């Protein structure tokens, strides 16, 4: 039996995996000046996929997973089922919230904005990207920054899931 919290987390992680794969296709084709028609299609599908998955990941992470992380334990209750409270209760792990989760939850929201701009550029200005090396490098740079921000967010999320006592997840991680 999978609880709703487990389901939300699995969806969030699954979207993250999709993001990585879509990014690979987008970056490999975005750096090339000339593409075959198949390459053009891979590039368009990849960057649009990255943008869609970035929005879905940020929204599910914020509205479905994050409330479970930051829930306050009732007075006198154990912090075992409350990751944020458990991390902050121990000075040795407080940094994982004060730095780790604070960075993750914020930098992750830059990704959908950047990925959407890149997707628009690739779909609507294909010719300009092929012709102007500055534009191609600029768009690829934004794509790379979006990927870097997503890697920071995903990496911190994975580590925090290991450090925090997520007993409510039933040991799925």
């Amino acid at each position, binding site marked *: 039996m999978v609880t709703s919290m487990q389901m939300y987390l699995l969806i969030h992680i699954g979207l993250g995996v999709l993001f990585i794969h879509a990014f690979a296709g987008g970056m490999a084709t975005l750096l090339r000046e000339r593409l075959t028609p198949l390459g053009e299609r891979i590039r368009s599908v990849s960057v649009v996929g990255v943008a869609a998955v970035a929005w879905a990941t940020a929204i599910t992470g914020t509205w479905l997973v994050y409330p479970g992380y930051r829930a306050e334990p009732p007075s006198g209750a154990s912090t075992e089922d409350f990751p944020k409270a458990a991390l902050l209760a121990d000075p040795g792990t407080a940094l994982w919230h004060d730095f780790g989760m604070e960075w993750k939850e*914020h930098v992750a929201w830059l990704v959908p904005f950047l990925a959407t701009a890149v997707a628009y550029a690739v779909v609507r200005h294909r010719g300009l990207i092929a012709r102007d090396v500055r*534009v191609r490098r600029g768009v690829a740079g934004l794509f790379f920054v979006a990927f870097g921000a997503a890697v920071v967010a995903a990496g911190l999320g994975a580590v925090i899931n290991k450090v925090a006592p997520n007993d409510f997840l039933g040991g799925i991680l």
Partner: protein
Amino acid sequence: VSRPLSRNRNESGAVEAPETNRSGTPAHLETPAEPDRAPNGSLAAALVSAGLACAVFGLLVMVSERFEALGEGALVMSEGVGALSGKAVVATVVYLAVWVVLHRRVGRRTVDLAGWLRATGILVAVGLLATFPPVFQLFASH
């Protein structure tokens, strides 16, 4: 009333030979390449509005650290999510609004993309810096 000059007719009205390339093919018969000065304003609008959304999100993070009325009040659109809900919603609304406005203003124009790309880079850098905990926690009120 001045009339636009017709193709191959100079200002004195004389007909000129059509421009040809090295192979002798009239230029207007070649496969039309996309003109170098094609409208690029919509790309500039998309890039800068994304950069601005990053900067606005970052500034909201810093401001909510500084002012509890925002961090624990106005920006809390969902009790479960806390102030992150307001930061995300406000930045997204600003993003879409600015994109629409910029698209309408410069979407059909040809702009200096280098400047717009530079502005985008600066705005993204502001967003990245302002969402880095050691930076935004400098503004913490407690």
